[in-house]
Every structure is written in C-alpha cells, then in structure tokens.
C-alpha cells in the first residue's frame, strides 16, 4: 500500500473512531479520550513542514466540524504539527533514523524513543487544547489535572492502536 493511500485511510479511520466511538465514552469529567492527533504523529519523517501544518489544520477543522468546537482542535493540532520536527530532531540519532523506515513507529524509532516522542507531543497538544477550551487559568489545578490525566489516557490508546495495527515491515 502506498504511503499516501495509507495516510488517507488513517485520516478517515481516526476521524470516525474519534467522533463515533471515543467521544461517546464517558470515563470521567477530567479524562477526555483523544486519539485523532495520532494522524499527525504518524506522518512520514520527510514530509515538508508547511504540508505538515496544513494537514494539521485540516484534521483539526474536520474534528471541530463534528464537535461544534470551531477552531479549538485545529489550534492544538497546528501547534503540535509545528513542533513535531523539533522533537524529531532532538530525538533522532546521529545521521537520522534508518532511511528505509519512512514513518515514525515503535520499530523505526525504538520503543523508548517512540514513547518519548508521542508523550511530549501529546502533552503539548493537550496543553494547547484544554487551555483554549477552559480559557482562563482561574481553576489551574483542574486544568493541569485534566491535561495530565487525558495525556495518560491518550498514550494508552496510542500504544493500543500501535499494537493492533502492527506493521511488520
């Protein structure tokens, strides 16, 4: 399967999963399950940065359309897409990741590197998302707790997703 087709399918799949499954699950007021930003995290390493940000905007706006939160998810998604190359640069070994591995995954990056990569970016995404949603630092304890717990929930979901759609390549 070509990379393009695979990413288009992933886009639709993650969007539907987020809207019709994860948004319907109520765990706790402090935990909101977010998985859709995995689309940005799994885009190929060599994608140009403007394209990365525009795809982030597209993904965010599509989700906002379903959730009536115009612009909030788009903001967080673009924010995360902008910071992604920096994090990859920091984490990549000398000479970059193996050239035959085109997309970030547990295999191409190594499990620990991959976990650090997704934790940092998911945390930054949630930071932007919930700060904008709550809008104001009036209840900063609530906000921080929500960010942290939701980040943990998202990480668990991402790891599960990765294990489910394991690509042996």
């Amino acid at each position, binding site marked *: 399967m070509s990379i393009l087709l695979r990413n288009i399918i992933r886009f639709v799949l993650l969007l539907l999963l987020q809207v019709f499954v994860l948004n319907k699950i109520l765990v706790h007021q402090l935990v909101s399950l977010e998985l859709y930003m995995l689309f940005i995290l799994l885009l190929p390493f060599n994608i140009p940065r403007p394209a990365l940000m525009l795809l982030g905007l597209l993904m965010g706006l599509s989700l*906002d359309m*379903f*959730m*009536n939160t*115009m*612009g909030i998810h788009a903001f967080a998604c*673009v*924010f995360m897409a*902008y910071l992604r190359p920096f994090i990859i640069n920091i984490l990549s070994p000398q000479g970059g990741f193996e050239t035959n591995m085109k997309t970030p995954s547990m295999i191409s990056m190594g499990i620990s590197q991959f976990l650090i990569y997704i934790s940092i970016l998911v945390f930054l995404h949630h930071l932007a998302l919930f700060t904008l949603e709550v809008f104001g630092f009036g209840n900063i304890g609530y906000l921080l707790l929500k960010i942290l717990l939701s980040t943990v929930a998202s990480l668990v979901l991402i790891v599960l997703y990765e294990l489910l759609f394991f690509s042996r390549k």
Partner: protein
Amino acid sequence: MRNLVIFLRRYFNFFLFLLLEVICIVLVFRNNNFQRTAYLNSANSLSGKLYDHYNNVQYYFHLKATNDSLVSENARLHNMLRSSFDSMVTNDIVRTDTIRQNGSDSAQLAAGPATRRYLYREAKVINNSINRSVNYITIHRGRLQGIRPNMGVIGPSGVVGMVRSVSDNYAVVLSLLAKGSGSSSSNFGVSARLQKGKEIGTVYWDGADPAYAMMKDIPRTIRLQKGDTIVTSGFSALFPENLPIGYIDTFSLADKSSTSYTIRVKLATNFYNLQYVYVIDNLLKDEQKQLEDSTYRLIK
C-alpha cells in the same frame, strides 16, 4: 527588498505557523458570537447525515429507556389534565387545582377564545455530548421545519437548552451543560424560581457533573428544603413558566456574612440518555420585542 525576501523565506515555516494559528483563534472567537450562521458545524449536511446514520443504530439500544421516559411524561401530563380533578363547583368560574398550578396559560384557555403563545415541535436527538466544558446537542429538525435560533428546548422531564444555529434539516442546541469561560456571569444561565416560595434565581452549570447544576441569587431569609422543585420563571422569552429544571440537592451559605445561598441542583433532565426533545416556539416573542423596542425609542 532582497533582504526582506530572504528573511521571509528563511522564516517561512514560522510565519505560516503564526498565520494558521491566527486563523484558528479568529474561528474560535467568532464562534462565540451568539448569532451565527450554520456552516462548518455539526448542523451541516455531511456531519448531520453521518450523525443521523449513527443514531439509527444507537437508538435501538436505548428504546427501553426512551419508552420509559415518554410513558412517565405522559403520566405527568395526564395528571395535569383538568378532567383528572374533581371539581364540585357548578358555576361557570372554573376553580380547579390545575389552574392554580399552571398559572395564566390554562386559565386563559379555560376562560374562552385563547391565543396560542407557545408552539411545541418534537425533534429527534442525533448527537449529544456531556463530557466537554461546553456541550452541544444536534437535533434532526431545521429551518425548513420551523426551527430558528434562540428557541428554548426541553426534554421529557425538564429543561435542556436553547437552539444555537440551524441549517435546512438540522439544528445545534447549546446544552444547559455549558460552562461559560471566565467569570460565572458569562454562563448560559436559565432564569429559574422556587416552585414553593416563588423566589427568582439563575441556574447555571459549573462544569463538574452532568447530573448537577448550581443555583444562585436565592436570599438567605428563605427556608429551603432538600428536594424542593426548581422551575422556569417565565421571565425570559425562551421557556414558559413552571417547567421543571431540577430539585434541590444540597444548599449552603458561602460564609456567615453572605446574603444568598449556594444551591446544588439535581437536574430534572437526564442528559445521559436524551432521545427526544421539544423545541418551543414563542409565537408572541416578536410582538413583545417590538412593543418594548418602540417604548424605549419613545423614552429616548
């Protein structure tokens, strides 16, 4: 000039980033306008249809609960019918309990040629969220079926919210579960009153639990009891009076010197499984508004 071009090209990514974020922020804040057109939200045809298909499946699993709530609503309405009361009075002045209970509306109906003031339209809920800080409900009825923004929405057992925006066949309802940003005064509050003492207050959601809301502005001189009913006041043009909002769960004074209670209200509507709602059209709203506006102009 050349330097400027080089500068722009060098930081192109950063400027693109800023541009996109500014677009998002503008969208967020424009969205806060109360009156806005429906496009790019869940009332548009694509997401509306998808939610519709989803609800067709999901609705089946809630049939039992939906039936129960509709039956209990029917029973409640039957109990309010005039024929359920035994009136010993034989003269033509009707004095039954329902009249006292339901205020001017049914008195008007009993008195003779009545003008219809509120028109109820039923609508199917096709999407509902309760775990965000501002929650929306999408319903399958829109402009073509007579839904307009700023209409009140109630469920089988109590107040639900107000219509925010409409498309041809769908509408998005701002749920009562909407926590305003910043100070509590900017919340979506429903004008409410105690059924017993008639004191006026405001019910708003504090963002904590979808089953409970808060009520403020009830003076401390009132004697409250757990389980007292809180109903709509009829002051706003959204809802007729005497619709249940909730029941008092706990109440307390913030400190010794505070003059009003902080009341925790158990909401009458169960937002967890909402399947049908009624959209209330206040037919006399425009007339009232026109009269008020022209009076203000006279004073000026």
